[in-house]
């Protein structure tokens, strides 16, 4: 086969301009594929990371049924903290109380979600402390205080400012009406409009006092060191905590809309990959058909002197394989340059940001995330499509009648 490999390589170099153009098409196809996939992956990763760090965490533990119906009665006594501390995969965890309430100011009222947090622990799990855009975060984690943080938009809805009071009214655990006034010490901008519009944070101790909860809580939020461990840790916790009394949910179960969005994007990525593979394949096929047309007599001659059809097919497949390899090499250079640009500048989604953040709470600049598997998959798709498509013209050349081929000038 060596001479056919040599022949194939020399044939690639025979019409350099045409080969260069083909290589360029392959390179652009590969670059488009890798960069678009890297941007998609960056977009997904940022979207998921934001959702996790804004409020959700990787895992949440509730009383059974709380996720479907988050009523005040569905609370539980926190398991010993050793359960979580003993797991190396868990980076941080925080307990919360969560309840629906009515927030009122002197001017307006708004249904809100009241979240009782442990300020010192919550800051390790979510970005709540960093999202305080005016005023300050809680100064104490354990004491019962009448301080609260509110979503930035809620401030304007209630037409109040920092330092002013709001009244929260809800049903307490014992069935009584809980009502208390809290002073706004800070306003939060999380990037998720839903949260910024209707969330009030108070300390865990205040919430437990407010709802007559005692030591009970509504949820435990866990942040893991690696997202890859989510399913395993979830399984282990379910076994350890007992699944009848408590529910352990991962972020995909808590926010299935994000999963669906990612799945939709992955489907679009696949469509893009198919389109690019077809374009690359057509470019190669065009090149090979032209090359075969030009060299038809030559195929007749080598067939006449005893070259077998499979050897001709092999030679032509090697030709397109070499074109594909050159395309990959050129594509690697182009991709590298493109990625450097996008790593530095990112893609600014400012013009779409209002819609995007409304749904997922996204920064306006997305940077690519490059994974080895993505690069390998894209390269294999491009190389395979560029190589396999030459089977058609190769069969055409190999099956040609040598007599007609020799006369074909």
């Amino acid at each position, binding site marked *: 086969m060596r001479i056919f490999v040599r022949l194939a390589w020399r044939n690639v170099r025979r019409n350099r301009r045409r080969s260069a153009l083909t290589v360029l098409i392959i390179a652009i196809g590969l670059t488009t594929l890798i960069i678009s996939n890297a941007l998609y992956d960056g977009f997904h990763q940022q979207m998921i990371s934001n959702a996790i760090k804004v409020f959700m965490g990787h895992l949440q533990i509730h009383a059974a049924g709380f996720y479907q119906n988050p009523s005040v009665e569905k609370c539980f006594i926190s398991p010993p903290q050793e359960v979580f501390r003993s797991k190396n995969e868990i980076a941080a965890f925080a307990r919360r109380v969560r309840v629906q309430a009515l927030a009122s100011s002197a001017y307006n009222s708004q249904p809100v979600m009241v979240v009782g947090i442990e300020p010192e622990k919550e800051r390790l799990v979510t970005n709540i402390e960093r999202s305080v855009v005016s005023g300050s975060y809680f100064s104490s984690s354990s004491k019962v205080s009448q301080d609260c943080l509110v979503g930035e938009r809620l401030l304007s809805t209630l037409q109040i400012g920092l330092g002013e009071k709001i009244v929260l009214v809800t049903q307490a655990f014992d069935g009584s009406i809980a009502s208390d006034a809290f002073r706004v010490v800070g306003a939060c901008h999380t990037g998720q409009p839903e949260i910024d519009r209707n969330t009030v944070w108070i300390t865990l101790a205040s919430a437990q006092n407010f709802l007559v909860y005692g030591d009970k809580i509504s949820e435990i939020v866990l942040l893991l060191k690696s997202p890859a461990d989510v399913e395993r840790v979830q399984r282990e916790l379910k076994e350890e905590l007992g699944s009848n009394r408590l529910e352990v949910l991962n972020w995909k179960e808590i926010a299935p809309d994000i999963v669906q969005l990612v799945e939709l994007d992955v489907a679009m990525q696949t469509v893009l990959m198919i389109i690019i593979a077809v374009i690359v394949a057509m470019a190669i096929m065009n090149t090979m058909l032209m090359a075969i047309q030009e060299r038809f007599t030559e195929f007749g*001659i*080598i067939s*006449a*002197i*005893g070259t077998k059809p499979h050897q001709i097919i092999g030679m032509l497949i090697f030709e397109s394989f070499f074109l594909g390899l050159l395309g990959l090499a050129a594509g690697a250079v182009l991709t590298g340059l493109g990625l450097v640009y996008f790593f530095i500048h990112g893609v600014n989604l400012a013009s779409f940001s209002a819609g995007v953040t409304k749904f997922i709470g996204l920064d306006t600049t997305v940077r690519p995330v490059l994974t080895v598997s993505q690069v390998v998959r894209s390269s294999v798709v491009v190389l395979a499509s560029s190589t396999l498509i030459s089977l058609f013209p190769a069969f055409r050349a190999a099956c040609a009648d040598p007599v007609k081929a020799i006369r074909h000038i």
Partner: protein
Amino acid sequence: MMEILNVQQITRIYDGDFPVRAVDGISLQVERGQFLCVAGPSGSGKTTLLNLLGGLEKPDSGTIVIEGEDIGKYNRRQLAELRLRKIGFVFQELNLIPVLTAEENIEFPLFLQGIAPAERRRRALKVMEELELSGLAERKPHQMSGGQQQRVAIARAIVADPALVLADEPTANLDSATSQNLVTLMKRLNQEKGITFLLATHDEQILQEAPRVIFLRDGKVIRERR
């Protein structure tokens, strides 16, 4: 002398609106070491006859036996094997593979036969020396004249020691001096090495010097001169 080729009543008809009997009942025997020319005007069936003898086309009727083997029932692969092992071809033009050097072109049939690289090279160099082509070893076809290309084509045709060399108007595109040199070369190879040549030509100069000539017209042998 030993018979190398025995052709009995072969016919080849090209279908179409007006079917053409390109070869019409030709019988022919060729012995090893003969130098035979097939002559005739354009359209007389010379090329078709050579294609049939070389296994490039199949006859519609009749038998072709090469070195005792009836090639009539051979499939495409077997015919390719026959051409590789027993027949050397020299065509009118565009004989060589453009991206290979003269030496590589000559080695090509040996490669197809699976001969080891060292042996391939030894045999190619030997033939090149015999045909005075040593200086052209590294040249590619476009770096050689038409005459040089045809000499390389002859070298390639004989390098694998075929039973029969079929040459279809090998001098058609050459000037008369170069044509004469080429024919002289083939005759020398025929006499010195005993290679059997079968040439299709209408070059009078070649025909005058040929020891055996069969004349075709309308696909039939109309005359033979020994």
